[in-house]
């Protein structure tokens, strides 16, 4: 089961759309669990964005999850990640690889050259849910696992996985469910 928790206010139809698209992409139940507060101490050093790993560690919500459940937090705030060897790059979400929690932001969606809020958020959410099942980035621009900053991601707004990613996610889901 995939549970969606909102950290900011979103129109209900947008959240509903995200839930339906994730359900269609992974073939798993997807529920809108409710909302939670953004942890204040999760802001990064610039105080302009929320640090992804910190946010997931600090977020406090009452969502009950079972062994194979995944929780996706939706926010409209900008996110940041620890600096890597390539410096600072765009960030549309953060997921604990092979873990249970991911946070996705709608920041930057709906502007020129970017998909709409509904479509973009659904695709970003599906992308980071994929990371929760150890899916890596995919070179197919139509696949939801294609890197979010690549032009292919906005070019194909439909939420779909390529054959390889689909099969891999199915295997992982089966393993998570105990065979």
């Amino acid at each position, binding site marked *: 089961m995939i549970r969606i928790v909102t950290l900011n206010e979103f129109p209900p139809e947008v959240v509903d759309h995200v839930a339906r698209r994730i359900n269609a992409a992974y073939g798993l139940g997807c529920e809108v669990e409710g909302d939670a507060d953004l942890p204040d101490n999760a802001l990064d050093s610039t105080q302009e964005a929320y640090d992804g790993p910190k946010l997931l560690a600090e977020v406090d919500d009452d969502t009950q999850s079972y062994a194979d459940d995944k929780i996706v937090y939706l926010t409209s705030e900008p996110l940041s990640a620890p600096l890597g060897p*390539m410096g600072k790059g765009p960030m549309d979400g953060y997921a604990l690889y092979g873990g249970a929690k991911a946070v996705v932001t709608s920041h930057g969606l709906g502007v020129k050259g970017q998909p709409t809020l509904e479509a973009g958020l659904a695709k970003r959410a599906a992308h980071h849910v994929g990371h929760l099942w150890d899916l890596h980035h995919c*070179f197919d621009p139509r696949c939801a696992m294609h890197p979010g900053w690549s032009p292919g991601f906005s070019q194909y707004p439909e939420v779909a996985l390529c054959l*390889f990613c689909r099969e891999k996610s199915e295997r992982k889901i089966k393993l998570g469910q105990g065979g």
Partner: protein
Amino acid sequence: MKIGDGSLAIGDRVVYPNQGICRIKGVETKEIGGSKGEFVTLSREEDGATVMVPLNKVMGVGLRKVASVADIEKVFDYFASPGDDPQLDWKVRHRENADRMTGGGLFGTVEVLKGLHALSRVRPLPQKERELYDSARHQLVGEIAAALTIPLATAEDNLDFALWPPQGMTHKGRALEPATIGMALKPRAAAGDDDDELGFGDEEKEEKEEKEEKEETGAANDEDEEGAPKAPKAKAGAKPPKEPKPAKGAKAPAIHLAPPPAEAHEPHGDEHHRSVAELAVSTGLKIKEAVLQAAHKAKEAVVHAVPHAAQKLAPHAPPAKEAPRAAPAHAAPAPAAAKKAPAPAAKPAPKADKPAAKADKPAAKKAAPKEAARPAKPAPKAAPKAVKPAPKAAAAKAKGKK
């Protein structure tokens, strides 16, 4: 305690090729199959699985320490640099990638990933290479994260900032060219169907060709080895897959009697194949020449055989209404050819005549009853004259009389 070449110690984080990042837990003595041995126990970080490697094989399996920060920097330099054109020959690519991956080195994995990434921009990867690409990526992301102590997500994002640079990305002061849209695969439903797009085309074609070659050589060997004894067997089962079709209608005798010039080079069953092969072996001519020669002989034989066959068919000739069916368009040249060369019918090539006549006889015999049987439907009395009554029918008649 020394592990491997002495560079590894208990508690170290190591890379186990194709397994991922592990931590050395210790060295244990285990009795397996009645013999005692020392094993290095590793714990895989990804899922906590325990991996045991014989102490004397630690270096052989490619176990090594996690790369240093300096090495990871080199990796990113390499990723951010413009790459060579991808290797398009799948055989060379497959061999090189397999060698790099089994070697277990960091830069081997890096080269595999970059090479396959470059290839994926040109054409979709075949399934096996797609798996290899994912495996190399998984291993590298794990190692980068372990070496730089950053989360896996950050490691992968950084890896792709170098491979698919976003707008405005720089590396060591140098602006990277932003990524363009890659090659889109076909929608999911059709993705599995198109083998050529997935790159299986070349492999499968080559495999098929190899198989065909093997079959051909095998068949040729069989013919060479057991040519004579196999001949009757081939005769018995000499009904080639396409033979029964013409035999159903009246076309069969026409094809045998007067093959159109265009089909003269085409084989007409196993006998023809065998005779061609024998010719090639005995005379040492090339197959093409042999085929031409055989076709020429067959043509002559057919020309000579026409009058005989026509005579044989004459009593069983169908009624006038059925005539157009029995003699289709491409059979028309037969009488013409017979008219053109009626004189040398018996004498000039008796040897060539015999096999041709033999070959034609059964066909004519088989075809004749059917031809006779067809018109016999409206007039059943005529049929028994053309075809000898079946014994069962005779028995039934006898019983009826009794």
